[in-house]
């Protein structure tokens, strides 16, 4: 800790994406022979920091010092050269190639201008052994391996590059418990070999077991660094909290009033492909229910499951108390069900960008405004006018490409397209991501207005403020299961983060057990 020069220092790192500050004067100091955990909620700046360190993006300000010397990385390859290797959460393996091919892919050993298969085999076997996975055959194709084994191959691939600093970004999220234990052993051995490990995880128990140092990020800035084990879970959560409330939310009705009516949508023990586990929930007309938790815990899959996109769904979905089988978005929007999904990525799943505003607005309702297969233009115009007025869509005309609109107005078009059908059940997948504050507030008002007129709203957001401000209830997902339900006044940032991290808010006792 008191070494004169840390292996790695990042000083005053700032990074903006458009108008959004991802990092603001962030500092980080990492010593050789230690495991350094990085904590923070969604959007705290963790992933931007990792991207900068591994050369994927450049910082706007600040400097990176390696062994006390300033370095800049123009590309991931340059960072690798300097000994910084990242095991990405998004797999970077090529499925059709063998394990050995993948391990040496960045720099295959060569003889006479051709790949030296013997040397490649040796490197692969060595790297696999170091990663604690000597049982994986170097000739096996990556696509034939289960996800958890692929993640181990990913680690072996990183080790084959002889890193001095190894970054593990949610590297255990796809692993089975047995594999996690192996990865831990590997991490500890690498630490004893003098490597520095940067460990990003949302699993507090892992951090407790592994980390030597911890740094907490909030709003793009490092707010605290401490030796592992010197802070309770409660204190850690307090450090992660503390965003300014910048949004204005509409008033909520008295809690509980909506849930007295019969549920319009009910799920019983939904499960799917190892990504959703035994999810049960009810949704009543007039209420706004939030889905919380860290990103990628099955929220998106849950919405897709309701909307008929997933095949091989286990469990039951009930509409108005009757079991239904929804096998496509077309079936989900049909009259008896009346469901709408505002998708996550408006550019690919929400809009046909080169087509006009008019065409995009009426896409979901074409079946209602066609007679004998011909679109009734007058009727279409009427519906469109209503929507443009209701949502205050600002556009230079209805016949310009929707791609020419601002992000906020594009999102309004996506919402309008579905509201045109007057859906009873509205599913929203992080609908305010990347849009301006003004439009966000309009969307909050609209959601409440829709609920007041009897719609049932299921709303996934990565922004905790939104969940607190908009929702009557919040279901927090963790690892594909509902971890906790927060109702009314229970919906606080503290409770959201604690349950998102899958720890009890009163985690003091667990902490002391570990320290003992």
């Amino acid at each position, binding site marked *: 800790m008191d070494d004169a020069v840390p292996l790695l220092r990042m000083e005053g790192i700032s990074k903006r994406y458009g108008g959004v500050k991802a990092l603001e004067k962030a500092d980080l100091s990492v010593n050789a022979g230690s495991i350094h955990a990085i904590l923070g909620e969604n959007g705290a700046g963790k992933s931007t920091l990792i991207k900068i360190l591994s050369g994927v993006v450049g910082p706007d300000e600040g400097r990176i010092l390696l062994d006390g010397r300033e370095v800049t990385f123009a590309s991931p390859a340059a960072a*690798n050269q300097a000994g910084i290797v990242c095991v990405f959460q998004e797999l970077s393996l090529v499925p059709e190639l*063998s394990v050995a091919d993948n391990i040496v892919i960045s720099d295959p050993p060569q003889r006479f201008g051709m790949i030296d298969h013997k040397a490649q085999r040796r490197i692969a076997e060595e790297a696999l052994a170091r990663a604690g996975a000597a049982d994986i055959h170097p000739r096996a194709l990556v696509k034939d391996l289960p996800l958890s084994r692929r993640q181990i191959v990913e680690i072996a691939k990183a080790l084959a590059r002889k890193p001095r600093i190894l970054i593990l970004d949610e590297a255990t999220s796809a692993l089975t418990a047995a594999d996690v234990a192996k990865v831990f052993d590997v991490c500890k051995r690498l630490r004893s070999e003098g490597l520095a490990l940067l460990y990003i995880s949302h699993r507090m128990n892992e951090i407790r077991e592994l980390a030597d140092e911890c740094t907490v990020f909030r709003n793009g800035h490092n707010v605290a660094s401490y030796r592992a084990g010197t802070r309770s879970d409660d204190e850690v959560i307090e450090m992660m909290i503390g965003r300014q409330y910048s949004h204005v939310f509409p008033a909520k009705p008295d809690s509980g009033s909506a849930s007295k009516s019969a549920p319009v949508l009910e799920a019983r023990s939904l499960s799917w492909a190892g990504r959703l586990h035994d999810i049960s929930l009810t949704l009543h007309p007039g209420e706004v229910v939030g889905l919380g938790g860290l990103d990628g815990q099955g929220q998106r899959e849950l919405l897709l499951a309701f909307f008929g996109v997933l*095949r091989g769904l286990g469990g039951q979905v009930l509409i108005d108390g009757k079991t239904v089988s929804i096998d496509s978005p077309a079936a989900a929007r049909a009259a008896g069900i009346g469901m709408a999904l505002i998708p996550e990525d408006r550019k690919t799943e929400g809009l046909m960008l080169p087509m006009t505003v008019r065409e995009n607005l009426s896409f979901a309702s074409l079946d209602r405004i066609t007679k004998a297969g011909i679109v009734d233009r007058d009727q279409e115009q009427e519906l469109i006018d209503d929507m443009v007025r209701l949502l205050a869509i600002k556009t230079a005309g209805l016949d310009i490409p929707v791609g020419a609109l601002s992000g906020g107005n594009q999102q309004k078009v996506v919402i309008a397209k579905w509201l045109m059908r007057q859906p009873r059940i509205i599913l929203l997948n992080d609908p305010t991501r990347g849009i301006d504050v003004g439009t966000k507030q309009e969307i909050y008002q609209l959601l409440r207005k829709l609920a007041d007129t009897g719609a049932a709203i299921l709303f996934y957001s990565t922004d905790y403020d939104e969940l607190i401000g908009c929702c009557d209830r919040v279901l927090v997902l963790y690892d594909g299961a509902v971890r906790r339900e927060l109702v009314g006044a229970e919906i606080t940032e503290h409770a959201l983060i604690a349950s998102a991290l899958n720890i009890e808010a009163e985690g003091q006792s667990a902490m002391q057990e570990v320290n003992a």
Partner: protein
Amino acid sequence: MKEWRYWVAEQRGTLLACGIFLLMFAIYTSNHPAGFTANVVETAANKGVLLAFVAMAQTLVVITAGIDLSVGMIFVLTNCVASALVVGTPMQTALGILAVLVVGVLCGALNGAIVIYGRLQPIVATIATGAVFFGIALLIRPFPGGSVNEDLADTLTGKIFGVVPASLVLLLVIVLLVWVPFRRSVLGRGAYAAGSAEAAAYMSGVPIRRAKFAAYMLSGLLAAFGGLFLTFFTYTGEAAYASGNAYTLFSIAAVVIGGVSLYGGRGSAIGAIFGALAFRTIGDLLFVFDLGALWQPLFQGVILLVAVSLGAFGLFRIRNRLEWFL
């Protein structure tokens, strides 16, 4: 799993194509009036080798998850060029051959440049370049004609020691000189990686652009070998539009039968060679079983359709319907 099992798994497509070919060829020769003789084999080899070259050319592009619809036209163009240049003294002939191969490489390079640096879809880019290649071929040979160094042609299309077809030996030599080094080079692996998961390959620092470019250029080279051989067989050059299109189509069939995935990243040119030989034998089988020649195109079309359909079975396993559109 045992070591050899991995080898079998890797070569499954190639071994299967080899098996299909051997079976069909056995049926063919056992029903042929002349039986399994050197002459029957030679004729079959000479016909098969042409498609084999074009199929190898197609393989290189398909591995990168592209498709080359101009490959038959490169074949026709180089045939026309060869009928003008591969004549005269041994020195002139050698220079002529070199020129033909350079033309092929340039055609491939043009395709590669448009697809990789121009970011056009391979299917659109190569339809357009194919039309251009045919146009040039027609200017060179408005009417069938030209000539070729006949001594060389007879040697390369005859039999070595009176038994082994020379064309097969040459095919083998080119496999060893072009395909095997490419397969084992860093660029070759890059081409496979780019075809399988381009983003992952990019993130791993693989030189995907250079790898794909090399694949397109070598594809042009192999198609030019095909054009050269066509000239050796026919002694003439002809800007035959139908023939160029047929070769493109058959090369796709050969590639699929040969176990090369149209989604990219998997397969071998050696498999495609067996695929080509098998596809050729299908036509011959119709002949020995006295089915009219008029049936042949329909039959080949059905085989092609069945072969490409087999590649779509993976879609039934997808559990998130959104992945259909990726």
